[in-house]
C-alpha cells in the first residue's frame, strides 16, 4: 500500500517536472509568414462584443490566417498583463486597451505599431486625438465610445409630478448642470427620495467636459489643485449631492440593488450602461432613456485595439485590427454588446439609427446615442498621471458622500494626496 502511494507521488512529481520543462523551454511558436500560414492572437477583456462568428468570417476571407481569441476576465487583469509584457514578449498580436488606462499606454507609444496614416479619418476626431502621441503617430484603432445620455425611471418621475415621456424629459433636463440639479431639488422636495445614484458617477460626466482638467498638456505637470473649473464643479456637485444623491458607490452591490428597487430616479448613461441596468433590474419596466445631457455632450469610456511592435506578425495583425474596427464590424458589436461605434461612417448606418431597446420602453437608442455622440465637443486632456489624480478625486468625493468629511476638508486632503504624487 505504502509503496503504491509512493509510486503515485513520484509519478505525479515527475510528470509535473516534465511539464515545467516543456513549458519553460518550448520556443514561442514561430509562424512561417512565407507560406502564408499565420496564427494571430487577439487579447480582450469583459464583453468586447467580438463574437466568434466575426473571427470565423475573417478567417474565411483570408485563407491561411487563424485567429485565437484570449479573453481576460476584467479590465484590471488585462491592464496588468499589458504592462507586464509590453517591452518584452508574450503579448497577443492585437491587444484591447481601455480608454481609462490609455493615458498610461501613451507613455510607451513607441512600443506599439502605429496605425497607417490613411486610416485616420475613419474615426471621430477626438477619438483619434486621444490615442495620438506627440510625434503624431496614432497607436490605437478605435473600437467603441461611450456617449452620455440620461437614464431615468418614469414611474418615479410621475410620482414627483414630473413629465414621464422621454422627449418631455429631454426638454425638462435640457441646459447646464445647474438646471439638472434644480430639477433634482424639485424631485427631492416632492418625494423625499434621492435623484441620482452617486456623486462619483455624476463627476464622470462633469470632469469629462473640462478640456484641461488635471494636467498641463505642455509640461505634463499637475494643475488639478489650482484649477478653478475643477473646484467649481466639485463644489456645485457636492452641494447638490447632499440631498440629491443616493450616496451609493458605483459598482457596489448596493448600487446594483438600487437599480431594481427604485433607490434613485436618474443616472448618467453611456451606451454600455444600458446593459448594466437591464441586467440588474430585469423586473422593472419603467426604465427609460432621454436624449439629453447636461451642458451638451460627454463621453465616458470606450476602447482601442493596439498592435504591440514586438509581435511576430505585426503586418497581419494591423490588417486584422483594421478590419475589426471597420464600420460593418462596429455595427456587429453594437448589436452584440451595445457598444457604440466610434467610426463616422457607422454612425449614419440605418442599422444603427433604427435600433431600439425593448427594455427601455422601446427607446430608439441608435438615434439617441448618435445624437449624443455628435454633441460631444470636448475630449479632455489626460496625461500619464491622470489615473492617479482621478482615483484620488474619486476618493475625495466618496469621503463627502459617506459623511466622513465635509467638502472643504476632503478637498484639502485631496490636495495633499495629489501633491505627494510624483
Amino acid at each position, binding site marked *: 500500500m505504502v509503496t503504491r502511494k509512493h509510486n503515485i507521488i513520484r509519478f505525479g512529481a515527475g510528470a509535473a517536472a516534465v511539464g515545467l520543462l516543456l513549458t519553460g523551454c518550448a520556443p514561442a511558436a514561430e509562424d512561417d509568414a512565407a507560406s502564408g500560414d499565420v496564427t494571430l492572437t487577439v487579447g480582450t477583456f469583459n464583453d468586447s462584443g467580438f463574437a466568434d462568428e466575426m473571427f470565423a468570417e475573417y478567417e474565411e476571407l483570408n485563407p491561411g490566417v487563424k485567429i485565437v481569441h484570449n479573453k481576460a476576465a476584467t479590465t484590471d487583469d488585462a491592464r496588468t498583463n499589458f504592462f*507586464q509584457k509590453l517591452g518584452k514578449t508574450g503579448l497577443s498580436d492585437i491587444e484591447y486597451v481601455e480608454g481609462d488606462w490609455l493615458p498610461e499606454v501613451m507613455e*510607451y507609444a513607441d512600443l506599439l505599431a502605429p496605425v497607417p496614416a490613411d486610416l485616420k479619418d475613419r474615426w471621430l476626431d477626438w477619438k483619434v486625438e486621444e490615442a495620438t502621441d506627440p510625434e503624431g503617430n496614432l497607436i490605437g484603432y478605435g473600437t467603441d465610445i461611450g456617449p452620455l445620455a440620461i437614464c431615468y425611471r418614469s414611474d418615479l418621475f410621475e410620482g414627483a409630478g414630473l413629465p414621464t415621456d422621454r422627449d418631455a424629459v429631454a426638454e425638462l433636463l435640457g441646459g447646464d448642470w445647474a438646471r439638472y440639479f434644480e430639477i433634482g431639488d424639485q424631485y427631492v422636495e416632492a418625494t423625499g427620495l434621492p435623484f441620482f445614484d452617486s456623486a462619483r458617477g455624476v463627476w464622470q460626466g462633469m470632469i469629462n467636459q473640462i478640456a484641461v482638467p488635471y494636467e498641463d498638456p505642455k509640461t505634463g505637470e499637475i494643475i488639478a489643485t489650482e484649477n478653478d473649473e475643477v473646484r467649481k464643479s466639485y463644489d456645485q456637485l457636492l452641494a447638490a449631492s447632499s440631498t440629491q444623491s443616493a450616496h*451609493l458607490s458605483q459598482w457596489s452591490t*448596493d448600487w446594483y*440593488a438600487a437599480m431594481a428597487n427604485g433607490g434613485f430616479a436618474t443616472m448618467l448613461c453611456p451606451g454600455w450602461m444600458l446593459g448594466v441596468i437591464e441586467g440588474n433590474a430585469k423586473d422593472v419596466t419603467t426604465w427609460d432613456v432621454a436624449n439629453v445631457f447636461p451642458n451638451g455632450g460627454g463621453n465616458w469610456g470606450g476602447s482601442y485595439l493596439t498592435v504591440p511592435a514586438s509581435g511576430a506578425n505585426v503586418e497581419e495583425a494591423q490588417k486584422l485590427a483594421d478590419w475589426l474596427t471597420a464600420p460593418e464590424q462596429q455595427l456587429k458589436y453594437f448589436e452584440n454588446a451595445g457598444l457604440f461605434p466610434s467610426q463616422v461612417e457607422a454612425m449614419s448606418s440605418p442599422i444603427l439609427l433604427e435600433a431600439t431597446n425593448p427594455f427601455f420602453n422601446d427607446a430608439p437608442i441608435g438615434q439617441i446615442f448618435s445624437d449624443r455622440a455628435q454633441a460631444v465637443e470636448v475630449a479632455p486632456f489626460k496625461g500619464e498621471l491622470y489615473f492617479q489624480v482621478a482615483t484620488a478625486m*474619486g476618493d475625495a*468625493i466618496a*469621503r463627502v458622500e459617506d459623511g466622513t468629511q465635509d467638502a472643504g476638508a476632503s478637498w484639502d486632503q485631496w490636495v495633499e494626496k495629489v501633491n505627494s504624487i510624483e
Partner: protein
Amino acid sequence: MPSHRSILPQRNGDSALREKLTRWDVKSAPYLYIAPFFLIFVATGLFPIGYTAVISLMEWDMVRGTGEFVGFDQYWRVLSAPDFWIALRNTVSIFLLSTIPQLVAAIIIAAALDRNIRARTFWRMSVLVPYVMAPVAVALIFSNMFGDKFGLVNSLLTQLGMTSIPWHTDPFASHVAIATMVNFRWTGYNTLILLAAMQAIPREYYEAATVDGAGAIRQFLSITIPGLRGTLIFVVVTSTIGGLQVFDEPRMYDHTGTGGPDNQWLTIALYLYNVGWGEWDFGRAAAMAWILFALILLVGLINLIVTRGLVRDDAAAVAENPGRRVLRPRRTTHDNARPVEEANR
C-alpha cells in the same frame, strides 16, 4: 595525494582511499540529497528576494526594464507617506481582531472535538470546510452581508430596531467585517492543527487529574493548554505571518479594491499592490515589501517570546519527572520569562 602516502604498501593505500571515499560519501551525500530543493529555492526564492532588494533602491520602469539608482529614497518615501502609517494601523487592527478570537475559538472547538462524541470524523471534517472555500468566494458572500444599505446584517439590525452600522465608512467597523471573513476561513484550519496536538497529550494525565478531583476546566487549563505549547507557538507564528499579509479580504471588500476612500481598510499588502500594480512604481513597492518583511520578523519574534512566556510547559515537565504532581502552583512571572529548558532542569 601527498607524497609521503605513496610509500605505504599498496593494499593499505587502497583501503585508505576507500575509507576516505566512504567518509566523503557519508559526509556529503546528505547534502547532495537535499540539494535539489535548495537549488530551486535559490532560483525561485532567494533570487527574487535579492532582486527585490536591488529594485527597492531604484526608480524602476518595469515596462522598459530599466532603473535609476536612488539609494534609500524609496524607503524614506514610504515611511514619510501618511498612507503607510494608516495602512500599518489597519493591518495591526485587523491582525488583532482576527488572530485573537480565532485562536481562542480554535482551542475551544478543538477541545470540544477532542471529547468522545458521535460522528466524530464528520464534525472534525466540517470545521475544515470554510478553509477549502476560495477566499474570493468568501469575500464576495461576506461583502453582500456587510452591504451598507441593503446588506443582510444591517437589514437584521434595523429590523431589531437598532441603527445600521456603516460597514464601509467607519474604519473599526470595516476592520471587524474583514476580520470576520479571515476568522471564518482560518478558525477551522487552526482547530484541526490544535486538535492533532491535543490528541498527542497522554490520556493518563487526565485520568490522574480526575482521580485528584480536578474538573474539566481545571484539566483544560492545566493539562491541555500547557500540552499545546509547541503547537500554539507554531499556530501563533503562522497566524502572524498570514495576518500581517492580509490581502484577499480587504481587496475584495469593495468593488474598487483600493482600501476605501479614506483608506479605512487599506492594509500594507494592499497598499503595496496598489503602488506596484496601480501606480507602476515598483521601486517603492519593493521597498515596502522589505519593510513588511522586517515588520513580520519583528512581530513574529515578539509573539514567539510572549507565547513561550505565557504558556508554561507543564506537560513536558511532568513527562520528565513523572513522580511530580500534575497540578502545581503557578510559577511566578519572573520564572516564566526564563527559557523552559533551563527552568525544567
